[in-house]
């Protein structure tokens, strides 16, 4: 049974290529799950605002929106990558 009914969703957040399982809560903003993934993967070198989260289709996700608004299923993979920066 999907845990969505309890408000909990099991996400896989892929941090720079490293899959990190996260138990997320529908009522919390997405940045809480992103920060958990950074902490669990040991990525403490850059603040969260230097990272960008996308779904499997490549759409950039708004980290301030509540997780429940995205209607993720258990096992959904999200991709968290360090932003490119200004370059040049």
């Amino acid at each position: 049974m999907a845990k969505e009914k309890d408000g909990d969703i099991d996400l896989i957040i892929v941090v720079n290529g490293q899959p990190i399982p996260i138990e997320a809560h529908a009522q919390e903003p997405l940045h809480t799950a992103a920060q958990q993934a950074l902490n669990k993967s040991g990525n403490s070198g850059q603040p969260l605002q230097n990272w960008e989260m996308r779904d499997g289709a490549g759409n950039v996700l708004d980290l301030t929106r509540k997780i429940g608004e995205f209607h993720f299923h258990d096992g959904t993979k999200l991709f968290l990558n360090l932003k490119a920066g200004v370059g040049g």
Partner: protein
Amino acid sequence: MQYADPNVSRRKFERELAEYRTLGGEYRRRGWFLIEAEFPKVLVALASAKLKPPALVMGVAFDYTNYDAAPPSVRIVDPFTGEPLKHKELPNPLNRALPQQELTLSMPAGGVPGVQKVMLQGAQPYLQAYGPEEIPFLCLAGVREYHEHPAHSGDVWELHRASGAGRLVRLLEIIHRYGIEPIVGMGVQLIPQFNINYGPPPP
């Protein structure tokens, strides 16, 4: 030259590959094809799956020698031969849109006096070279050529190393975003040519 402990570099290289392969199906759906992977080198071909038929747009060659005491080298290459592409041969220079700028013109091009505001949208390429015959480098923190460039001596690798700036998937994501995602379709140029057609010559 490998100056870092080769066992350390090799293990970190293998970790990069293992993580890539864990999600290899996802990456293949995006159009990423891992062609070669033998320490310290990786070659990935990037295709645009949006196009019908799909197009193999570029290859990306990574060299993880001394990783992660040093960042990886990254070159855009011909996916068929593995040869680095010169700037003039690039399918695109990985342009990043700059913030729009408002330009105020006191005399517009039409010659009618007055003030006109124009919005300018510039772009900055992530692939930089000094000329069309040069092999460009990816001007991005986490890339060896960027950190070795004298203009970036104030932005050393050690500032980025702990955040995974040189990781394989992170670099591929950026190259894909700026080099593959903007592709929306094939362009066709038709050049009409007229000539006179003749039938068989008379007897």
